[in-house]
């Protein structure tokens, strides 16, 4: 058989393409359920690790049920809207205009304090980066941070998924007074007393800047929610209320 005839070449190419394509599609479709389960468990693992709960992937589902007390979805005015927080795909949401985006919130309790966990998503150097930030009840102090990425360079940008990069976020604050300043990842290292900055990554500046932008952009979306929660906390302290009104009363009577 002459393997260099035109007809043979076409035939060979056609058969090869069909064979390889079907092999890969069968593999992709039959393995999809297993892959999805891994991705889902990993997401639960990530959410839990922001509140300091480290579990294996097998235990993630049970631990998630136990520790995440409630989940809901907000619009960008801070109002609760219908939706399943866990299955909101931020990759899709980010493409929508700001006023149509769904903003998921996960609540947990740590040592009796309520913790709010917010998902993040932005752009790295080569592809998407994402993560979860856990905020304390004051809506200001970060109590945990996790980041991950699709295809950042190992040893450089990919370092955002490691503990040494994530741990310094804990205890940092996103508000300066009443102004939202977010957290900056600073090239060359953050000043030790800077409450709004963490150290950057040598050779990973573009990915690190991606993290800075992602945090600023996402926090900004949640700003109305933060403000509602902050004013709720203020309203709920009855002592200050009483004092304020009595003072107002006194002032009035003097006048």
């Amino acid at each position: 058989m002459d393997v260099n005839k035109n007809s043979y070449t076409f035939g060979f190419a056609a058969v090869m393409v069909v064979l390889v394509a079907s092999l890969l599609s069968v593999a992709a479709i039959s393995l999809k359920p297993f892959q999805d389960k891994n991705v889902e468990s990993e997401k639960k693992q990530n959410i839990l690790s922001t509140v300091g709960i480290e579990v294996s992937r097998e235990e993630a589902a049970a631990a998630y049920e136990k520790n995440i007390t409630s989940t809901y979805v907000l619009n960008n005015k801070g109002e609760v809207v219908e939706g399943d927080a866990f299955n909101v795909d931020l990759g899709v949401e980010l493409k929508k205009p700001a006023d149509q985006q769904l903003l998921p919130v996960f609540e947990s309790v740590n040592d009796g304090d309520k913790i709010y966990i917010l998902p993040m998503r932005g752009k790295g150097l080569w592809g998407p980066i994402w993560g979860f930030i856990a905020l304390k009840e004051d809506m200001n102090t970060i109590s945990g941070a996790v980041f991950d990425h699709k295809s950042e360079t190992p040893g450089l940008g990919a370092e955002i998924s490691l503990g040494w990069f994530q741990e310094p976020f804990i205890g940092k604050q996103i508000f300066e007074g009443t102004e939202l300043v977010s957290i900056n990842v600073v090239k060359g290292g953050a000043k030790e007393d800077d409450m709004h900055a963490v150290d950057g990554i040598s050779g990973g500046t573009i990915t690190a800047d991606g993290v800075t932008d992602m945090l600023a952009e996402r926090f900004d979306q949640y700003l109305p929610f933060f403000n509602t929660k902050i004013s709720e906390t203020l309203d709920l302290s009855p002592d200050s209320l009483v004092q304020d009104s009595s003072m107002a009363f006194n002032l009035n009577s003097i006048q």
Partner: protein
Amino acid sequence: MSEKKEALFSKKNRKLLIDPLNDNNPVTTQVLGICSALAITVQLKPAVVMALSVLVVMSVANVVVSLMRNLIPSRIRIIVQLVVIAALVILVDQVLKAFVYDVSKELSVFVGLIITNCIIMGRLEAFALGNTPYKSFLDGLGNAFGYGWILIAVAFFRELLGAGTLFGYPVLEKLGLYEMGYENNGMMILPPMALITVGIIIWIQRMKNRDLIES
């Protein structure tokens, strides 16, 4: 089956396995695979993962192409080789994603790099198309080892001098070098230093092995 069967590890077959480690190294002698040697040698761990992935893909692809060598039309042979490599890499990645998720996460970035690694195509083209499957398998293994040890050697120096760690373990800190005023050389983390490190390895190799020096 009339001709005398060759021993499993005859001198010729051993040569296939050992030659690429030094005299005919794909990186330092043939100067192939430089792109990935540059991209992923910042740390040891990814370098090891990459070396292992190339080992698997190269030996299997060599066998597959060698089995089909009499059927492949010569005008589209490069495309066929590329399809074989790409299909293998994607298949392996899908299986890992389903059953060994952590390994697949380590590998994710390398999938593209494995497919475009010119050593793999180079061996398919230069060897597997004209040799029996077993010989091709040995050739694939040998070249993957030759590529792998250079990768790991470069990564060793870059991680040690650039970050002061090995496999993420802070070696230099434990040795107390920083207290004596030592500082990491940040330049080692940048890609050009991979080329310079490879250059130094080539230099040492040619100093020891004068036959490699072109007149």
